């Protein structure tokens, strides 16, 4: 009986191979779940191709009824007095309401926040700013959504951070929550100040 085991021995690793494979897959899935939880892994995230590049060329009209200067690429060319945030938003976008207090806070702290109003109605965009406050130093109106496509925007809100040289350093797709502000944006603002 003991001898009968000897021709089987080379095949035993075949038994463990699927087990090892399953274990490796388990470790992989665990890492993915961890990443999903802390936000470092997002399978639906579209990485921005603009990182390390200047803003694409554009020139947008101002929003009627709101006393804010318009926004064009020329306003984002370095050298700039400090880092600049460019925020795509719309009055019909619910996450934009969640993110608004954070933008207001940054604006009060003296950070230059520029806005691009995406596919919105003039009256409703104006009403949004009157109700929730205006964090923007400049505001462009992108009703056709073409400038957003040039930036690679795939949903609102989306926020870009430009350094003093006018280079895009960071892109956040989705609302800037208090957590995003403290853990992601603040360290970058310090670095590029």
């Amino acid at each position: 009986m003991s001898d009968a085991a000897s021709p089987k021995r080379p095949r035993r690793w075949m038994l463990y191979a699927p087990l090892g494979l399953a274990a490796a897959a388990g470790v992989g899935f665990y890492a993915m779940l961890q990443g999903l939880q802390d936000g470092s892994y997002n399978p639906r995230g579209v990485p921005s191709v603009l990182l390390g590049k200047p803003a694409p060329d554009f020139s947008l009209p101002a929003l009627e009824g709101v006393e804010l200067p318009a926004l064009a690429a020329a306003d984002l060319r370095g050298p700039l007095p400090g880092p600049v945030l460019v925020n795509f938003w719309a009055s019909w976008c619910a996450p934009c309401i969640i993110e608004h207090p954070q933008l207001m806070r940054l604006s009060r702290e003296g950070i230059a926040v520029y806005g691009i109003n995406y596919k919105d109605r003039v009256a409703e965009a104006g009403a949004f700013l009157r109700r929730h406050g205006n964090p923007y130093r400049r505001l462009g109106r992108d009703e056709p959504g073409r400038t957003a496509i040039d930036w690679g925007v795939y949903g609102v809100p989306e926020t870009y951070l430009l350094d003093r040289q006018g280079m895009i350093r960071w892109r956040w797709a989705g609302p800037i929550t208090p957590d995003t502000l403290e853990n992601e944006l603040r360290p970058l603002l310090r670095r590029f100040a």
Partner: protein
Amino acid sequence: MTRWIFLWLLLALPAFAAVGDPNERLADPAKEALAREIGRELRCLVCQNQSIEDSDAQLARDLRRLVRERVAAGEDQAAVITFVHQRYGDFVLLRPPVTAATILLWATPFLALAGGIAVIMLRRRRAVAEAAALSPEEARRLAELDRGTA
């Protein structure tokens, strides 16, 4: 007669449904066909498993319009796809290019095939080896058994 017209309309309906808004379509059928071919290569970034031709998302509609404008202006498929790729990166291409980051994705079927072939070859060789001559120990045991039964 009216029944035939209704039947014809019913059967022809999917043709009208090809692109959500007929106003979007290009007048030139050849250019419209090219625009659709390009659109099927581009991922809708909102509903990510659909192409921009299949999706009804606002962004997909805008990208469809953009593709048709550029096709109408005489650009070829490569130029239009490059234009969109420069803005949205590899993610927008439903057929991702072969790069260092995507090589594993492309190579996996071939690696699996090579692995399978390797396993088959190994097993075959072992089967041949097993059929080879008995070891002296085995020969001795066999002789013992033979004697036992005799």
